[in-house]
């Protein structure tokens, strides 16, 4: 595995036994300075290492602008939404490509997806402005236009729990829909922010939503009650996605800085890692982050057309 972010302080082995006490002292001082300098920049001490890539090995059939990842913990499958080629790809836990599915060329600019217990797949199709249901057994796609309080909903991000949670791109509001009737149950709105939310996660029975304009994360109960607003700092350039770590840390994907910024549960900055590029472990136009159930932090990179998974 390739080590990221901590190479400056760990990448050199020093044989202390063969050096004089003065040399050792100097080396220790230099090492300490490097560590401190690294921490001051917030780019080391992350401990995250590149682990796996999800991509189509056949270069001529590579993904184009993948936009989302769904993880089926039960089947141990990853699903990637290949927006540019209007298809969904599934991979096993080791990153082997399993299937490519384009619903008989019926998908139009798919953007996000979830797979529900009954084997069906819900897909946000931006090209149809629809939340479409794919019945795999019946081989049928049913598009649905969503409305909330009479207004047309523009589906963007999607999560599934007891309800289907849909981020309405037009308002930045998250709306919980009944999966059967597609009637709205409740909604989650950003208090006092102009742009609304840009991404959200359901974690530990709470809904966490990212407000880009004000650089905050809002935590809601699933009944729609706002429980806490966690302010982040101004070091974020263009946050697009969030994930909540197992210990409650908040991971923010910064699309324009091409890195991930990590905050503790109170919003205090801890560190940032990754950077711009096309090589392994680098990001170009990242669009979504998500934790898998096996401790992996998955980054969907539209620009590099792949999903990279990092582990500690």
């Amino acid at each position, binding site marked *: 595995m390739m080590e990221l972010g901590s190479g400056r302080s760990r990448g050199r082995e020093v044989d202390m036994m063969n050096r004089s006490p003065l040399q050792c002292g100097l080396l220790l001082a230099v090492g300490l300075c490097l560590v401190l300098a690294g921490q001051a920049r917030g780019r080391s001490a992350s401990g995250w290492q590149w682990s796996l890539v999800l991509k189509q090995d056949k270069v001529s059939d590579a993904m184009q602008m993948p936009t989302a990842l769904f993880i089926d913990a039960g089947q141990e499958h990853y699903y990637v939404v290949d927006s540019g080629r209007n298809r969904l790809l599934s991979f096993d836990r080791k990153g082997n490509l399993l299937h490519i599915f384009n619903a008989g060329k019926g998908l139009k600019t798919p953007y996000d997806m979830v797979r529900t217990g009954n084997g069906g797949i819900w897909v946000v199709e931006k090209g149809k*402005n629809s939340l479409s249901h794919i019945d795999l057994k019946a081989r049928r796609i049913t598009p649905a236009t969503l409305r909330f309080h009479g207004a047309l909903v523009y589906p963007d991000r999607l999560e599934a729990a007891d309800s289907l949670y849909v981020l309405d791109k037009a308002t930045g509001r998250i709306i919980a829909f009944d999966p059967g009737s597609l009637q709205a149950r409740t909604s989650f709105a950003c208090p006092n922010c102009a742009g609304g939310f840009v991404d959200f996660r359901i974690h530990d029975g709470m809904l966490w939503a990212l407000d880009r304009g004000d650089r905050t994360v809002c935590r809601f109960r699933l009944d729609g009650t706002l429980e806490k607003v966690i302010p982040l700092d101004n070091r974020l350039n263009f946050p697009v996605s969030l994930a909540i770590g197992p210990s409650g840390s908040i991971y923010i994907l910064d699309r324009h800085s091409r890195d991930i910024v990590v905050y503790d549960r109170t919003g205090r900055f801890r560190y940032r890692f990754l950077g711009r590029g096309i090589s392994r472990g680098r990001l170009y136009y990242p669009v979504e982050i998500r934790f898998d159930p096996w401790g992996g932090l998955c980054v969907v990179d539209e620009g590099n057309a792949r999903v990279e998974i990092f582990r500690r």
Partner: protein
Amino acid sequence: MIRMAMMLLFLLAAATMVPAVAMADDRACFSCHERSGFSGRVVHEPVAGGRCGVCHNPHVARFKGLLRQRQDTLCYSCHRRQKETFARGVVHEPVADGRCTGCHTPHAGSGRGLIRKDLAGACFACHQDLERKYRYTHQPYAGGQCGSCHRPHRADNLELLVEDGDRLCLTCHVEADLAGGHRDFPAAPAGCLSCHNPHGSSRRALVRDELHQPFRRGCGACHRPGGLTVARCLECHRGVQQQMLATHSHLTRQDGNSCLNCHSPHAGDTDALLRGPVRLLCVSCHLQTLSGYRKSASKHPDIRECNGCHEPHGSSHLAMLRGDGIEVCVRCHEDQGKFTHPVGPGVLDRQTGQVVTCVSCHNPMGTQYGYQLVRDGKKALCVVCHRAY
């Protein structure tokens, strides 16, 4: 004893020589440079003290005017507090670029803050696209009082406004008086700049020149049950609808009508009814993008019109470009589209499987390398793909 006396003499001599050198500095300069050009009601402190050498090197320098350092570095070496405050919020371009003398005279002037005599003239020297006079001109604008609405260095509001738009208007205009001119307004008049041009207009009451067609017919065309949503706008503007259904769009506004982020629904200065110049609208959200552009050593020369390359409504291309990373560039750079490093369909990056385009190597929004290359073009850029070399 003799040694102590010698030392005392030396110290006395040294103490008397320091001002002698400074005076010589001043006198030597004015033996060629006309002294009257450096006098006025307000004289910059180093000039008044005859310390020309604080800023200028009399023999040789790397900077124009024999300046010892970059202009802003020199200014901030004394005006330290300003360096800190001018880095925050919306920063005026000359300030961000370190061109302090665009507005200030460095030696002497007649006004406070060593502001150049004709400040409005200095403003118009850059803001050339602004008309100097309208059929109906706002009084402060006509009087060249740019500073009554705009801050010269930095502000918390876009367009460097002293206050948020409405509040600024109400510093002169009395709210109670406005009701008479807004009889059909459903609430207290607000969003003044949506309809009025604060500089001037060919219409009375400074109503902007171009009126939205439905607005000409009355309010009811838009203000009807169902809400003022994006869908309401798209009922007429069908061409935009497909762009809104792209992978990425600018549908971002909590009240549900993101069209209003950039467009006025009532009146504008052009038929696009934009709320302001394109770049200004873009940086209202993408301020850090502009900041990064400014700090870059190599950047595309003119990005005034962001929508030249980016599709502001929506696009299924990266960075919401108007086309792929070749189409956008070759509209201007025709030759590079014909002979260059192979690009386009069939030329795939082995690492990502993506088509190699102009933006694979260049970033027009600015980099630290020549030709806006994303890495050093001598080697580092090439070996990303050509690893065997």
